[in-house]
């Protein structure tokens, strides 16, 4: 079984459009949305949720006022500025800032602090007309998005193994931080989707370096390449110089927005220049994954 992750560094370059299209082309696969704090793939795949699981990423400190003497020891040890004293000399925890380290819990001489499990999200096992789909929703402003990604990927792997599926396709989050690293680790191939803007180039270079840092095979494609041909040429050169296969150049086409508005994966929405190029990209991905067309 192989795992393909789609990442970009910069947000909004077209990861989910490509993931949604690949869902319609690839067979014998599990789809996974690992952009757990702003998931969108479900808007194209229209999942029927079969299982809902609660996710707790960690704990939050809570002060029991009846036991608290207001000594302030906890205030001194908290490194996340999550504990403060009110005007009434009452010590309180800001649950948004609390990272659940529990140092206050251990240090409190009055045992006035408890650590409460915080419910920080949900994840779902769903069925779609394109096959199984695992997705999640992180609680608002929550931590541990990396942990939730790992949880979701574990389930996807289980389902793939159980059903003898050949491929897991992961729609990744933007950026370079913990949820991206969790989405990338242990995959066989990372497809980086970029756009020909200075920001897109800069962010692509960083995310490719990250993928290489974790020793993941990496390929690139340019979305809306015809917005700036000069920058697209620069991306091509950079890829060539760094031995990164550039496996597709997708033109700008307003059908992409139209398909998104209709909630239909682009490759099913219409035959156009974009869907044609995504099909080519798929064939290139198969080669890089050493897989047969299936």
């Amino acid at each position, binding site marked *: 079984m192989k795992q393909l992750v789609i990442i970009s560094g910069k947000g909004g370059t077209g990861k989910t459009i490509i993931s949604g299209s690949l869902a319609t082309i690839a067979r014998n696969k599990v789809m996974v949305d690992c952009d757990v704090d*702003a998931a969108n793939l479900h808007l194209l795949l229209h999942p029927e949720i079969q299982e809902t699981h609660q996710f707790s990423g960690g704990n939050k400190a809570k002060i029991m006022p009846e036991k608290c003497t207001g000594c302030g020891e906890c205030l001194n040890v908290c490194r996340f500025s999550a504990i403060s004293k009110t005007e009434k000399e009452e010590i309180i925890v800001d649950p*948004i800032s609390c990272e659940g*380290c529990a*140092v206050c819990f251990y240090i409190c001489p009055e045992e006035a602090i408890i650590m409460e499990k915080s419910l920080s999200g949900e994840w779902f096992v769903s069925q779609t007309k394109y096959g199984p789909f695992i997705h999640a929703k992180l609680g*608002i402003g*929550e931590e541990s998005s990396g942990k939730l990604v790992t949880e979701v990927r574990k389930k996807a792997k289980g389902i793939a193994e159980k059903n003898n599926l050949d491929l897991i396709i992961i729609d990744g989050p933007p950026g*370079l931080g913990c949820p991206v690293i969790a989405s990338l680790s242990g995959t066989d191939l990372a497809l980086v989707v970029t756009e020909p803007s*200075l920001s*897109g180039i800069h*962010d692509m270079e960083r995310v490719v370096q990250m993928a290489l840092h974790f020793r993941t095979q990496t390929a690139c494609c340019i979305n809306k390449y015809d917005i700036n041909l000069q920058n697209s040429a620069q991306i091509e050169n950079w890829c060539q110089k760094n031995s990164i296969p550039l496996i597709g150049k997708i033109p700008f086409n307003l059908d992409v927005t139209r398909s998104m508005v209709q909630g239909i994966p682009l490759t099913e929405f219409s035959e156009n220049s974009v869907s044609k190029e995504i099909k080519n990209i798929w064939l290139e991905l198969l080669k890089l994954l050493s897989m047969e067309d299936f």
Partner: protein
Amino acid sequence: MILSIASGKGGTGKTTVAVNLALSLKNSHSLQFLDCDVEEPNAHFFLKPFIVQKQQVFIPIPEVEEEKCTFCGKCAEVCAYNAIAVIKDQVLVFPELCHGCGGCSLLCPEQAIKEKGQKIGIIEFGSADNPQFIHGKLDIGQAMSPPLIREVKKHMNSLRTVIIDVPPGTSCPVVESIKGSDFCLLVTEPTPFGLNDLCLAVETLKKLKIPFGVIINRADVGDNKVQDYCQEENIPVLMTIPMDKNIAVAYSEGKSIIETQPSYKQKFLELFKKVQKFIK
């Protein structure tokens, strides 16, 4: 005033709004610009600051003094992040999991754990021009951006009007960036993706109790559902920017809108006036 620019969904135009607002205000206001998208900072392409100072940022991670350690396992027991493990007569530290809370060193009964700095990124400071520019850059392979964002915000100068460019999403790096703002502008696009993520961003701001308004970018493509949602929820739409290939092309070259279409300056000034009214 501290004004943050966020979105939920990536690529909707946060940086575009943030830099054009800064460039429109710079003749009339004393400004500071903080790019808190430390994973992928981009505002410098448009503001072109002259970097005069760099500062490395470290988080404290444990360092065990083997000769003092009795391998009792207390550190592994108290670590909430599984960043330290004790196996027989060996202590293993996993820096990428460490949040730098200091629990292990504080609670070690033998005082065998000291802390050392692990570099996670850098902060770069522009010259003291207007806007005064600061951004953070997370090192490749580092997972934890909030400590770097906190460090960028430590240099906030609240005597100036502060504009904060926020990373995409709704999780901890976003909260860290927005926290303490007087107002937040949410930039979205009129598509189901834009609406879905706008709703998440709205929930985040309600939780943080920070007032906000919406800017709809590429407003004439897509559908009306973002408009409808804002109307139903009584969320002010403070500006709309039409789909314009010229703006996209200028963006791709690192040019601001007002550089190529100066008439937009007035629109951004009006936007700022509206924001000021909300804060008063």
